[in-house]
């Protein structure tokens, strides 16, 4: 994250303060506007404005959520309960905002449909225009504030330093120029001996801090292997991926609000210009409402004062299509919002589902690890993203004896580092005496409990003993198993992927993930 609470360097507090300052500023503005809208709605007794003010309130809530997430995510120190720190807070904040936005869209959809069946005219369009324009200005300001972190963009373009001269892996946060080669070996060594970002504090007394007085962001730098060169860059780059998600959520919320304001203003303007209202006094005939089979009560009230539905009017109320403009525009807005929110929802959900990050190719990593001498087999390789660019990997590696393991351990870590995975835990497994060569069975039971939850979980579980309970599930999945023997890396979640029965070569890697 962008530094802890105390200033570390010139870049330290500035960038998170930047984010926080923007959020706070926008929050203050929006809340003020909400209060103003509520007051105006009471004065003009306009219910539509009151409901609009609740939309503003939901905007305020979104900003609060984002702020809370930013606040929490600064606590990268490990605590007793959260050994990884609170780093994931921003991803959660993004998810919460995306879900709220989706729910809001559904609400707007419901209201729009209601207005289709029962159109109503805007009273006092001038007031509505004024308030709408004020809201639009505030929202545009917010868009400018957050556009910096907006959809796909990021304001910092500089080196991301997790390469040790080998390969440049750019996370999806955006294009970056090539980082300086850095001190590869030393950085690796530092990373090995230092505690990683997530493990900085030893408040529980169990973990010993090797670098006792190393603070969070320095460890940050070391994780990225580019210590000391670009402290500013590292912190801002660290901020990019996960904070970007959070800011994107806020941006989308403000964007939705801006769209809403635009619709309100356009609608009110057109209404003011083109609508031919019923005069306050005198009989009036409103063809728009008459044509729909509404109840008489509805009718009489729309006609203003003391009107009966059957009374023929001297004046005819304005063009009817104007009344339908509002719901139509709302529908368009809902479509736009859903379309733009979906990628954010998907991205944060994938992180929370412990997916392998997109930029990492598990197969090539696997083959690289297996080609090392001394490595007989690899089990239980799991790579997942904690937040942003913090990727964590775990594996069981089977080696013939402890001494080869010690030789090979460093190389293994290097390979992981090259891919950008800095927090790794490698468990060595030593072949038992007299066991068969090579194609390792897992020495220590790697059978996962989730195998039983999964469809046909123990079909290829060659390591652990089969459990009876799982067979009950196999019936329902037999259909599925037959259908998709493909073993390609498939990202489409709609196709349940079957384990690699046919491909025994890869079987050993994934057998125990069942």
């Amino acid at each position, binding site marked *: 994250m962008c530094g802890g609470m105390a200033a570390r360097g010139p870049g330290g507090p500035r960038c998170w303060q930047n984010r926080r300052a923007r959020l706070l500023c926008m929050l203050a503005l929006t809340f003020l506007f909400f209060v103003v809208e509520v007051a105006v709605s*009471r004065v003009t007794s306009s*219910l539509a404005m009151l409901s609009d003010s609740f939309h503003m309130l939901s905007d305020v809530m979104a900003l609060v959520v984002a702020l809370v997430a930013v606040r929490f995510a600064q606590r990268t120190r490990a605590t007793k309960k959260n050994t990884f720190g609170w780093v994931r807070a921003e991803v959660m904040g993004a998810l919460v905002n995306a879900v709220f936005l989706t729910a809001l869209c559904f609400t707007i959809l419901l209201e729009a449909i209601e207005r289709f069946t029962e159109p109503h005219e805007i009273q006092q369009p001038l007031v509505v225009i004024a308030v709408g324009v004020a809201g639009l200005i505030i929202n545009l300001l917010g868009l400018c504030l957050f556009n910096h972190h907006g959809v796909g963009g990021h304001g910092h373009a500089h080196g991301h330093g997790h390469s040790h001269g080998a390969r440049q892996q750019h996370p999806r946060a955006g294009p970056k120029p090539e980082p300086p080669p850095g001190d590869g070996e030393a950085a690796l060594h530092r990373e090995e001996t230092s505690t990683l970002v997530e493990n900085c504090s030893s408040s529980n007394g169990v973990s010993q801090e090797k670098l006792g007085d190393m603070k969070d962001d320095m460890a940050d730098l070391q994780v990225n292997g580019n210590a000391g060169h670009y402290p500013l860059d590292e912190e801002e780059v660290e901020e990019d991926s996960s904070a970007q998600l959070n800011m994107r959520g806020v941006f989308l919320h403000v964007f939705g609000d801006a769209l809403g304001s635009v619709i309100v203003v356009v609608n009110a303007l057109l209404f003011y210009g083109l609508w031919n209202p019923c005069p306050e006094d005198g009989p009036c005939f409103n063809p728009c409402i008459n044509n729909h089979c509404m109840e008489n009560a509805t009718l009489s009230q729309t006609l203003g004062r003391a009107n009966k539905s059957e009374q023929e009017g001297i004046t005819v109320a304005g063009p009817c299509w104007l009344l339908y403009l509002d719901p139509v525009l709302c529908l368009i807005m809902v479509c736009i919002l859903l379309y733009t929110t979906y990628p954010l929802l998907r991205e944060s959900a994938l992180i929370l589902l412990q997916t392998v990050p997109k930029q990492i190719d598990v197969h090539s990593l696997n083959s690289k690890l297996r080609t090392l001498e001394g490595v007989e087999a690899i089990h*239980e390789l799991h790579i997942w993203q904690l937040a942003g660019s913090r990727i964590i990997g775990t594996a069981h590696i089977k080696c013939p004896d402890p001494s080869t393991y010690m030789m090979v351990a460093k190389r293994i870590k290097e390979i992981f580092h090259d891919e950008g995975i800095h927090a790794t835990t490698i468990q060595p497994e030593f072949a038992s005496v007299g066991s068969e060569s090579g194609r390792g069975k897992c020495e220590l039971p790697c059978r996962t409990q989730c195998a039983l939850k999964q469809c046909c979980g123990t079909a290829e579980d060659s390591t652990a003993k089969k459990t009876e309970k799982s067979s009950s599930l196999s019936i329902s999945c037999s259909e599925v198993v037959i259908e998709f023997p493909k073993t390609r890396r498939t990202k489409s979640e709609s196709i349940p992927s079957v384990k690699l029965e046919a491909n025994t070569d890869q079987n050993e890697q994934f057998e125990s993930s069942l």
Partner: protein
Amino acid sequence: MLPLSIKDDEYKPPRLNLLRKVSGWFRSILADKTSRNLFSFLCLNLSFAFVELLYGIWSNSLGLISDSFHMFFDCTALLAGLAASVISKWRSNDAFSYGYVRAEVLAGFVNGLFLIFTAFFIFSEGVERALEPPDVHHERLLPVSILGFIVNLIGIFVFQHGGHGHSHGAGHEHSHSLFNGGLGHGHSHGGHGHSHEQKHTHGHSHGHGHGHSHGQDYCHDDHSLEAVAGSSKQILQGVFLHIVADTLGSIGVIISAILMQNYGLMIADPICSMLIALLIGVSIVPLLKESIGILMQRTPPSLENALPQCYQRVQQLQGVYSLHDPHFWTLCTDVYIGTLKLLVAPDADGRWILSQTHNIFTQAGVRQLYIQIDVAAM
């Protein structure tokens, strides 16, 4: 060279694929008891919503129409739960090395969020109506709310029996996934009437409270885990509280309908809505806390007491100097994953240390463990 004909099994015409896929999903749903219950409850809710929609169109009551839309909205929550129950059974693949089992936690969380949003929405509607009390058509209110109450009771009955019916060979209760509580929502909207600027008011109240908790997919274990019992009680309690809140909500709607009908207390409606919204909000908080904890990779609460003892035992093993960087987190209900690093003496027996440590933690309930052995340079 004669061309070899290969029967290409991988290719299937797309239409057949879709049909097979969908039927595969249905089988998966119907195979598991809890998702079966969920599916049937979803059908019940959907049919109730359709009936309400048709009745509203027929009697031209906008209130009933919009209420049926709200019910559809609720059905999406049920649908999300059902989808998660199907998805979490999928096998793991390259992109999802742990499989899709976390889908249920995520679904529970998302449902909780939707519920909070719904509560907020109901509260705002209640405030609106309190400020401008509309005319509520209470003649339609009572039968609808009673129907909703019945649906709620059905939900309680069905899910309380089927929800945690699994008991094991070891005879201990399992914790339910959060998913369980996450969908155990029900709410009854107090009537909401809209009064627009033209002072056209209509009112309706729909008293459908549907409480349902559906069981979940949880892991079967072979041997007992003493750490499990604590969390299961908590989740069970949460689910039960939720259903009780739903029932109270629908009772509240019925009471307010009666009050309005007999005594003309129009203010009862908004107050009822606000109370219900508060109830929902309060009841959803423990669920949210738990799913947030899991998603944030928090140390499992059920292991919190056991872990320090395990650390001590590990450190007492011969050859182990110290233990670093322990990370324990929940993948899904009852599945815990841990990583830690041990600093050992150069002459220590790595294999023995590994197997002992595995045993120690297996007793605590953590099966998937990654122990890194760092040999101290001497």
